[in-house]
Structures are given as C-alpha cells and as structure tokens.
C-alpha cells in the first residue's frame, strides 16, 4: 500500500471528523 492509498483509507475518518467539527461550529453559531 503506497502513501496515496493510505491517505485514501483514512479519508472517510477525516471526512467524518470534519463533519463533526462543522456541526459543532454550526450549533455554537446558529442555535
């Protein structure tokens, strides 16, 4: 597995983490 494929393997986790952060930002800003 080369580095690019390793990055792709972790991409879903990074996307979910980003989604959680954006959700928290939205709740703090707009609720």
């Amino acid at each position, binding site marked *: *597995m080369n580095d690019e*494929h390793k990055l*792709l*393997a972790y*991409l*879903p*986790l990074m*996307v*979910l983490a*980003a*989604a959680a952060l*954006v*959700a928290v930002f*939205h*709740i703090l800003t*707009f*609720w």
Partner: protein
Amino acid sequence: MAQAPSAPRSSLLREFALQQAPLILAALALGFVTAYLQHGFVPGADRPYPLAGVRVPVWHVIWMGAWTGYTMALVGQAAGIFALPYSTSVLQFSNPHVTPSTLLLTFLNPIGALLGFRRTGQWNLHFAGWLCAGGVLGGLIGPFLRAGLLADVDVFRLLLGLALAFVSVQLAQKALSGFAAGEKAPGGGVGAPRIVTLARERARITIGYRGGQWTLHQGVLFALGATVGVISSALGLGGAFLIVPFLVVVYKVPLYVVPAATIPYAVALSATGLLTYCLLLPLLGAAPLAPEWAWGFFAAAGGIFGSWVAAKTQLHVPEPLLNAMLGAVLAAVAILYVTNFFFPLPFRF
C-alpha cells in the same frame, strides 16, 4: 468504478471535468436560480430559508451533501439516510418541508451513477421496471401520509428513528460478515460483465450476472416497490434501505447487483414524490408542501461530488470498519429519536 483507482490521474481528471463537473455546476446554478425564483433572494447565514425557517450558509448545505454522499456511498447507502437526520437535528430544519427538500437530493444524487451504469451496461430495465412502477404508486400515496399523520415532528422522528435503526443493523451485519463490494461491484468499466435478462415467463423474470442467476416475481417486486415507496416518500428517503435487504434475504440477490434496481428506483420514487408534494396535494385539497428548491440543489451539488469520490476510492477504504462506525452513529441517532418520542429528552436536537 472498481478499476478506476488504477487509471491514470489524467483520465480521472478528464472524467471529472467531462461527466461530473457539468452536473455539479448545473445543480449549483439551479440552486441560485431557484432561490431567486422562489424567494427573490439567496437564503444563507444572514437570511433564513423562508420555508425551512433556519439560517444555514450555502457552503454548509453543499458540504452536507458532499460528506453524506461520500460516506454513505462508500457503504452502499444513499445520502438521504444521513442528510435527513443531519438536516432535522443539526441544521434544525424539522418542519414537513424537509421531506420534499431531501427528496430533491435523493432524486438528483443517483443520476450520475445511473448514467454511468447505463454507459457500462450495468442496468436492467426488466429487473428495475416493476419495482419502479411500484415506487411511482408509493410516491403518489406517501406524501399524503406526511401531510397528515406524520406532520407532527415527534411522530416523524419516531418513524425516521426506526428507519435509521434498521439501516444501522444492516451496516452492523455487513461489518460482522466483513463484506466489501470491491471488484465484484457493477459498473467496473467497459467490458465488465453485464446484468442480463435470461428468461421472462409470465410474471417471473430471471436475471444473470457473473455466472449467478436469480428468479424474481414481478408482482412481488411491484408490491415491494409500492410499500417501500409509501414509507420512503413520506420520510424523504430513496428507499434502497428497505429494498436492498428484501432482495438480498428473500431472493438472495448479491449486494453488488441490487443497485441496478435501487438506483433507478430512487430516481423514479423521488420524482413522483416531488410531483405529489408540489402538485397533487393541492389538487386534492391539501396544502402543498413545497421543497426548499435551493436547499435541495445545493445539497445535490455536494452529493454528486461526494458519491463520485466514493466510487473512485472505494477499493482503498476499510469497508467493514466504516460499516461499523457509520452503523454506530446511525444507531445512536435512532436511539435518541425513538427515546424522545416516549420520554421527551431535556435537550434540543
């Protein structure tokens, strides 16, 4: 889809520029145009969406479509399963208009995949036809359920919670069995095996793919499509979450063949549901439930991109782990919704 990661980077870029970017740009443009036509301005962080009653920046709606489309496509589900609870709970868009708005997402999101499947021969209208016909019937009925019994937000969330629980069980089961669609998934490119019709006798159809064959009863497909269509169009989902387990458990159709039926089904069901919400409800004396068109188009623009990225990178993703994680998230949301119906929780969500 499966062989794409080994394709040269330039061919991927060309594919994106020629096939995906026009769809994404069209969805974005339609988002702005429909915002002006429907409201006279573009809602966002400063001015709330009039029907939704919430302020959400445009980029956030696009992002919601992108991340839900990406993660759910990786595990073979539609974006709506995540986008609907995210819209109702995080973005606080929880009135009945959220359902047709999400239906616009479930209508547009699979179109890219549908075109791709058609190009590579991975679709079979004999397989999908009666299911879609049932979906059209369900899409005519479900919106009336939403405008009546499910108009109450808690009842709606209870049913949505049950749907999410059902999906989380599916994902958990896939995680435990170590399922990964991998190279067997349809749409593997030109020259890949096709899903063919082997026989059509009376109401039965036999389809074949990669040496396997499955006989299905078209009356059962129609009834399944109609039943699932009522529930899905009332909630704002594409329906695959119920169709897939039925076909897999009852007819033993492999998971990687089922999208040939569920993708056109989601498009047909969502289109009919949208028409019913906008036109049929007022024609029959009920109040129309218009979607936030701009919301749906912005989310779809992100969703098309997310689903495409998922299709191109799926081979490198630890699918069982992802099934477990997403199943756990959905289970947690489902528990919140169902619990809140019986024992109102002391916090807002």
